[in-house]
């Protein structure tokens, strides 16, 4: 995996995911190590994403790396009309690895082809966000102690949410039962469901969130966006139907945990935050360890 770019979650095999998760566990025990003090990490954020950028920069800094880069395209030469290729070729001269976020889909794959240093995709439009997917896997394994034999419920916008698609695909490597809760308009696309079937796994579809409360080991919440509906009346009908509250979780399994890629709007009531099931803020912290594992692996120091 040394020197190999990570663009799509499908670039890694199951064994490679597990290797990253194991290493992330090591970093969780000991996050401050002087492993990357000879390295420069470039974080190129062509669109702002504070959470992801800070998580990468914290991961790199705690391992002693120097961090260079920009946090939105306006403060870079992109605003002067520089092509992505030229930006990448230039930055590759100054750094050992590039972490990039870009609003256009496919930009990260293209960057990895022109760059002489490896590229980590920190989100390319609506396409891929593989480090989110790895930190979700890490959070599931950490809270449940395993990745096989779990009942995982996905809730909300399953049609457009890229994190959901990638995570479902990745979980197809394990013995997962999928519970898919969404309004009819926002059901999981059929190509993703085909992928579940092709792996001899099963899925169940629901429109009522209460139906999965007693069976789920993980509830993965996502936000439903108004702009996804062609008919605003339909949005008004469903907008409050997929809000998780502490009262709804009364009969959940004791090991159940609630995940969310954040930022949330109102889909998880704040009264959930103080329950033992709330895991979404720790999930975000796990992102630092997973990104440390990726940086260390791709730079070849671990």
């Amino acid at each position: 995996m040394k020197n190999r770019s990570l663009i799509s979650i499908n670039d890694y095999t199951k064994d490679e995911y597990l290797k990253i998760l194991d290493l992330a566990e090591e970093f969780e025990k000991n996050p401050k190590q002087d492993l990357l003090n000879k390295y420069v990490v470039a974080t190129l954020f062509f669109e702002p994403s504070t959470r992801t950028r800070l998580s990468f920069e914290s991961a790199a800094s705690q391992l002693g790396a120097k961090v260079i880069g920009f946090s939105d395209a306006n403060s870079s030469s992109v605003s002067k009309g520089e092509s992505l290729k030229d930006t990448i070729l230039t930055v590759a001269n100054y750094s050992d690895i590039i972490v990039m976020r870009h609003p256009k889909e496919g930009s990260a794959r293209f960057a990895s082809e022109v760059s002489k240093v490896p590229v980590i995709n920190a989100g390319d439009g609506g396409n891929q966000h593989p480090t989110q997917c790895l930190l979700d896997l890490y959070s599931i394994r950490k809270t449940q102690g395993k990745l096989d034999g779990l009942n995982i419920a996905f809730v909300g916008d399953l049609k457009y949410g890229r994190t959901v698609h990638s995570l479902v695909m990745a979980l197809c490597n394990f013995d997962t039962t999928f519970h898919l809760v969404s309004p009819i308009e926002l059901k999981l696309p059929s190509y993703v469901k085909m992928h579940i079937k092709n792996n001899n796994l099963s899925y169940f579809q629901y429109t009522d969130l209460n139906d999965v409360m007693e069976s789920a080991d993980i509830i993965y919440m996502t936000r439903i966006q108004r702009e996804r509906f062609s008919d605003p009346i339909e949005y008004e009908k469903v907008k409050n139907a997929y809000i998780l509250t502490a009262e709804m979780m009364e009969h959940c399994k004791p090991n159940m945990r609630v995940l969310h890629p954040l930022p949330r709007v109102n889909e998880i009531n704040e009264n959930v935050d103080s329950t033992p099931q709330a895991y979404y803020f720790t999930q975000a912290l796990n992102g630092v360890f997973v990104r440390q594992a990726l940086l260390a692996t791709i730079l070849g120091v671990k």
Partner: protein
Amino acid sequence: MESKIRKELVVSAIENGTVIDHIPAKSVFRVVKMLNLEQTEGQVTIGFNLESKKYGKKGIIKASNQFFENRDANKIALIAPTATLITIKNYEVVEKRQVEVPDTIEQFVKCVNPNCITNSQHITTRFNVIDKLDLKLQCHYCEKITGKNNIEIL
């Protein structure tokens, strides 16, 4: 019988070169463009709305002294899946082959996704053909699928 004779005549009418037969009548000019025949110095004859027993109406292109690599010829399978390539040497048919959709396609198809990086920067498009019968092209970059009804030739 009469049309059979005429077809043989049409096919034999060049000394050396390639005849592309059984092109859907409406795709003839797109094939010309795709094979860059507008730029060629040699003699090119183009026919369309010719009668075809098998397909109703068809188009045909005869290009003197032009021979196509499989790689180039297979590109046209995207818009003319029924096309046959006939290689002529000394007025004789030396080879006849059906075009085939290739496994990968580079350069001449536009990605259907408006938010794909290939549509906003100077980047050569690349696709993996994931369904040859129903023609589905997956973009190497944005991973979105361009279906047969959305194929736009650059």
